[in-house]
């Protein structure tokens, strides 16, 4: 793809689209290449939340007033919008604090079912000693530690699918870990470090065949904001994603679950609005999604998230994926000729999502990041909440650039160019590197 193509996203010029983002109003602002951590927000999203707060703010689902009716309608319409966006029914979208919270709700729900805190409807969630939970070594801590805790709570065993020297796992590797004892298979659709795109439908088919008792839990944090998603078509049981990575607000995330599963999963967090009848000793819970939505919900955030969805839909998720993946592919191509820089994840030519993490020989990632920062390129350095993966790669930390709809080829080029300078600055450049830089 030529750079000219890279400067368009769907029907729009990226430069034009950037006009929607107040954060980019200052043209001398650094290149923001940390969207995989959190994305910037367009004016449309900020305005939608403010409009709700200035003109429609009222409680939802409680009381009889017209104000509550309007607020409730906006809130539930937002849910329907987000549900449609990811191929879910309205009742299959639960608001959470973030994706981490969503994954915890599943893991804690299984623990409660296993501890006998739910009725017979939850029997399929009961784990016993000897049962197994399968994750990959590449998981974000959010999709790892809750499962460690579930294992500790139930006596189940956690198994990890190993990654290769690039940080990639395979269907074969997964297949080797599956059995009748497998009760949960949890993995990310897109890795936030390697950019690997998992073959979700194939995984689901494999799990259904080899591990018929397993629930498939998808960490969709890095996929929903960047590519078309249809959870029903993928056939996963549960999925999680966050608002703030998809041009929406902080403080809101989504737990997707197939309706009959959500209705049976015991709610880990309890309180007002989740219940039908409550006595001093006992409470009965509503069906999903409300059984999980304890206390006052992120209503203004839901309204804003729905606006973010409309914004992304107007661009088209196919176009979003094509744009971001082309940017990343170009970075990988250019880095191939840079000595001392190791690209983690799929190598040149292989498909990858719109992010690239690298290791720079002889320079610690935080020094790399500091150098890039001074060069006007904001990246993320560290273990990216994936310590086991980094341990497998033999490094403590890497440096990651990630794209979103507003990212330009020029910004990605600045990343590559600055990377070309970094080893010389820290006095570790070899002859070859010096020539190229």
């Amino acid at each position: 793809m030529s750079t000219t193509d890279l400067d368009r996203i769907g029907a729009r010029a990226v430069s034009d689209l950037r006009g929607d983002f107040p954060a980019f109003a200052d043209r001398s602002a650094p290149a923001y290449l940390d969207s995989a951590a959190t994305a910037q927000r367009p004016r449309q999203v900020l305005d939608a939340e403010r409009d709700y707060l200035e003109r429609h703010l009222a409680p939802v689902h409680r009381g009889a007033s017209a104000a509550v009716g309007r607020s409730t309608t906006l809130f539930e319409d937002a849910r329907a919008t987000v549900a449609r966006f990811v191929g879910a029914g309205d009742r299959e979208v639960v608001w959470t604090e973030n994706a981490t919270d969503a994954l915890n709700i599943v893991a804690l729900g299984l623990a409660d079912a296993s501890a006998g805190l739910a009725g017979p409807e939850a029997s399929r969630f009961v784990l016993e000693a000897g049962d197994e939970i399968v994750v990959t070594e590449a998981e974000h801590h959010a999709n790892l530690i809750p499962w460690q805790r579930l294992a500790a709570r139930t006596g189940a065993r956690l198994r990890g699918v190993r990654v290769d020297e690039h940080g990639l796992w395979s269907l074969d590797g997964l297949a080797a870990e599956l059995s009748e004892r497998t009760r949960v298979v949890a993995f990310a659709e897109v890795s936030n470090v390697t950019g690997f795109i998992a073959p979700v439908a194939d995984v689901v088919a494999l799990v259904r065949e080899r591990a018929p008792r397993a629930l498939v839990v998808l960490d969709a944090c890095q996929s929903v904001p960047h590519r078309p998603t249809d959870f029903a078509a993928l056939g996963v049981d549960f999925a999680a994603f966050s608002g703030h990575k998809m041009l929406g607000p902080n403080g809101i995330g989504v737990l997707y679950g197939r309706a009959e599963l959500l209705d049976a999963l015991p709610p880990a967090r309890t309180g007002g609005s989740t219940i039908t009848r409550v006595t001093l000793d006992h409470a009965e819970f509503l069906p999903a999604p409300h059984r999980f939505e304890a206390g006052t919900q992120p209503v203004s955030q839901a309204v804003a998230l729905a606006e973010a969805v409309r914004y992304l839909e107007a661009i088209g998720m196919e176009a979003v994926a094509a744009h971001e993946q082309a940017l990343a592919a170009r970075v990988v191509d250019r880095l191939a000729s840079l000595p001392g820089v190791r690209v983690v994840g799929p190598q040149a030519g292989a498909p990858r999502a719109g992010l690239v993490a690298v290791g720079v020989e002889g320079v610690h990632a935080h020094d790399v990041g500091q150098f890039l920062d001074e060069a006007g390129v904001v990246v993320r350095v560290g273990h990216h909440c994936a310590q086991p993966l980094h341990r497998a790669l033999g490094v403590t930390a890497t440096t990651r650039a990630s794209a979103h709809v507003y990212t330009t080829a020029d910004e990605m080029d600045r990343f590559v160019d600055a990377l070309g300078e970094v080893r010389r600055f820290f006095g570790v450049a070899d002859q070859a590197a010096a020539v190229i830089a």
Partner: protein
Amino acid sequence: MSGLEGLYQQIILDQSKRRNGDRLLEDPDAEHHEYNPTCGDEITVRVKLSSADAADSTDDRGGPGTARIAELAWQGDGCSISMASASTLTELVAGRTVDEARELIEAFRAMLRSQGAGEPDEEVLGDAIAFHGVSKYVMRVKCAMLAWVALEACLAQATRPAR
């Protein structure tokens, strides 16, 4: 008609005090308890069916849908809308076949989802058209539906093949 009078038509206020059918029905063919989580109100609806008579059948299936509702009664408490709606339902369904009752419930539901649009069909809905005004009040739609949803569940129960 002002908002409030459109919602609380005189006939609704009257029905809410009349409470037709507010009593215990012994040995029902079906019973269902419905709960409104927004307010905590509850209602239990019970029905007795008279078995289907071939002469009564409006189609030639002669299936369970052709049984008639011999009696409907309810117990519970709630706002004036829910009480008036239960009372009106009691009057309207007596003697209808199960299929007819289902059609009535569907028409009532459609009216309540209309958000005030359209004109309800009095031929079909009878006195229940008084609840058209409720459809503009999203938070109250559940009140009006409460007894009707309970009846719907009763009918499903009573006509389930394995009963």
